[in-house]
């Protein structure tokens, strides 16, 4: 894996934050990917219209190809076995719906507006992520 690059990390982060800010100031909505996904899928009738939610979601993979063309193909290394990949997807899907948000909605948007719920949620999923990786890599010694 390539070395840590503070410049691309900060630049990419700024782009994400500007996108979240634009979603708020232009369209009046929270740029939460799990919530927008559910609305695009027609699962929940939230404040965002299905067309706007779907357009935002479709933009994500299209935009991700842009740095690939300008700089170089970003590495995507999935080392998780298929059963755990499926378990992880199910947990992320169910959990973000139950907890009303993910890294974008709670982490980037909710924390920026100093929502106590979002700060609590972000602390909880970060802690759960730290513990899960510790258990898998250091207690079970799985090559993750």
């Amino acid at each position: 894996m390539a070395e840590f690059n503070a410049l691309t990390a900060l630049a990419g982060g700024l782009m994400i934050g500007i996108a979240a800010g634009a979603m708020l100031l232009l369209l009046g909505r929270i740029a939460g990917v799990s919530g927008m996904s559910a609305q695009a899928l027609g699962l929940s009738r939230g404040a965002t219209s299905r067309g706007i939610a779907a357009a935002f979601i479709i933009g994500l993979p299209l935009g991700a190809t842009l740095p690939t063309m300008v700089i170089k193909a970003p590495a995507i290394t999935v080392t998780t076995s298929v059963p755990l990949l499926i378990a992880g997807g199910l947990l992320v899907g169910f959990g973000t719906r139950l907890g009303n948000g993910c890294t974008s909605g709670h982490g980037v948007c909710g924390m920026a507006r100093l929502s106590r719920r979002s700060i609590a949620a972000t602390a909880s999923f970060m802690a759960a992520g730290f513990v899960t990786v510790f258990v898998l890599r250091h207690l079970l010694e799985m090559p993750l």
Partner: protein
Amino acid sequence: MTVRMFVALAIGALFGAGLALSAMIDPARVLGFLDLAGRWDPTLAFVMGGALVPSFIAYRWLRAIDKPALADDFAVPETAPIDRRLIVGAVMFGVGWGLVGFCPGPALAALLIGGWPVLVFVAALVVGMIVHDRMWVRAA
């Protein structure tokens, strides 16, 4: 396609480009951040920090304007108490995140360039959402 939908598409594309540029669409890097006891990778902290600056400014700005430029109202959640649902959901999400290194944004952003494991994860993610919204919530 309406102007609002085009703007939403462009915002999604900017978001996705940011995720790709910052390497957050690489689960190995996210797991490196979550691995405090291993060779810790600070990338995610820099990305989150970088994202919070413009996002914070935008949410301050919100107080000074009546309505968004292209919509009729702001849909920002009211302050609600921290309940068990929130914490249980966040913990389930965090466990799944730690198993794979993908959260919803990066997984969707990686759809076109990540190959079959991304498709498998996203399919399971959608099933998890459907199970929650269509079965769990209805049953409750």
